[in-house]
């Protein structure tokens, strides 16, 4: 299992870099505009992915910032969000690199945010959710980009796999 998560951690950074490079070319007004998406704008969608990732990383590692709300704004501008995303993606890569197969099969516990309840779960399925959640919301950001610019970079895991062999 570890190889799969190592791949997803590296893919996450690759996909975010492509997505952020495209988002960086969008005019600020378009980037900030509420386009009726689940989290409104492109900015708030990218923010939400950061927030969810921070929450899970704090659950996995017991360290780092813990946002209090799923729609909390971690950065007010795109320029401020970029370094947060970069640091977080590196943190995710390092965290997965330090995992063992036993650790992945082991349990951890956490408290949910929206409706506080204590949960216990094995690490591997929670990590599967973590990476699946990123993809779901990158898909949303991707279609906002397509709607704004008429174009967005493909984020297929397959392209990442072919690029990195």
């Amino acid at each position, binding site marked *: 299992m570890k190889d799969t998560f190592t791949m997803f951690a590296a893919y996450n950074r690759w996909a975010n870099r492509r997505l952020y490079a495209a988002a960086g070319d969008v005019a600020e007004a378009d980037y900030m505009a509420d386009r009726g998406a689940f989290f409104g704008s492109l900015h708030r969608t990218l923010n939400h992915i950061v927030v969810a990732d921070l929450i899970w990383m704090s659950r996995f590692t017991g360290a780092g910032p813990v946002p209090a709300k799923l729609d909390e704004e971690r950065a007010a501008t795109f320029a401020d969000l970029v370094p947060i995303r970069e640091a977080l993606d590196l943190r995710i890569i390092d965290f997965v690199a330090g995992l063992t197969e036993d650790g992945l*099969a082991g349990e951890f516990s956490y408290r949910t945010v929206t409706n506080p309840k204590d949960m216990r779960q094995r690490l591997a399925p929670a990590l599967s959710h973590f990476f699946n959640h990123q993809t779901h919301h990158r898909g949303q950001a991707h279609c906002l980009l397509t709607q704004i610019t008429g174009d967005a970079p493909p984020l297929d895991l397959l392209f990442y796999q072919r690029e990195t062999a």
Partner: protein
Amino acid sequence: MKAYFQMLAHYNRWANRLLLQACSSLPDHAYHHDLGAYFGSIHGTLNHLYVADAIWLHRLSGEGESPYSLEEQPFDLLADLSAARAILDERLIALIDMMDEDEIHNSILYRTIRKPLVMEQPVSSALAHVFNHQAHHRGQVHSFLTQLRYKPPALDLIYFQRETGIGMTEEPPAAAEVIKLGEKGKDFR
């Protein structure tokens, strides 16, 4: 690895059912409305997801139809697409159920669609792509529903896990034993 892909195959069926059910409450014009998405409308995006999965199922199993182009739109109506989707999702579950760990790590050969090249890839990494691709496009459809002012269902894998117990701590005793015996976390059900 097998249990991991079994979970994702069941999650795929669960998420598609929720999403297609939500789409069926849309008026036709909204469902077919061009939202300026990569595949145009909700219908165009769902058609693409079906086409991509059909291509991969054909590559992985050697069975079923294999569309010629990623832009192919095999269905005009949601009802027809939903019926075919349900069959495809069952085939995906059955395919993974029949695989053993070795088969999952073996490589397959296939020809790409856009510029025909022969590719070789382990089944595990191909499956990881298939499930990730589904989540990407379901995320888009989810966003379109919101933009059309319809409330989409939450499709989080974690909700599927909590609802079905798959991947949660209430383990079937046999599987829990396997992990205690140090089977390297192959199986996390």
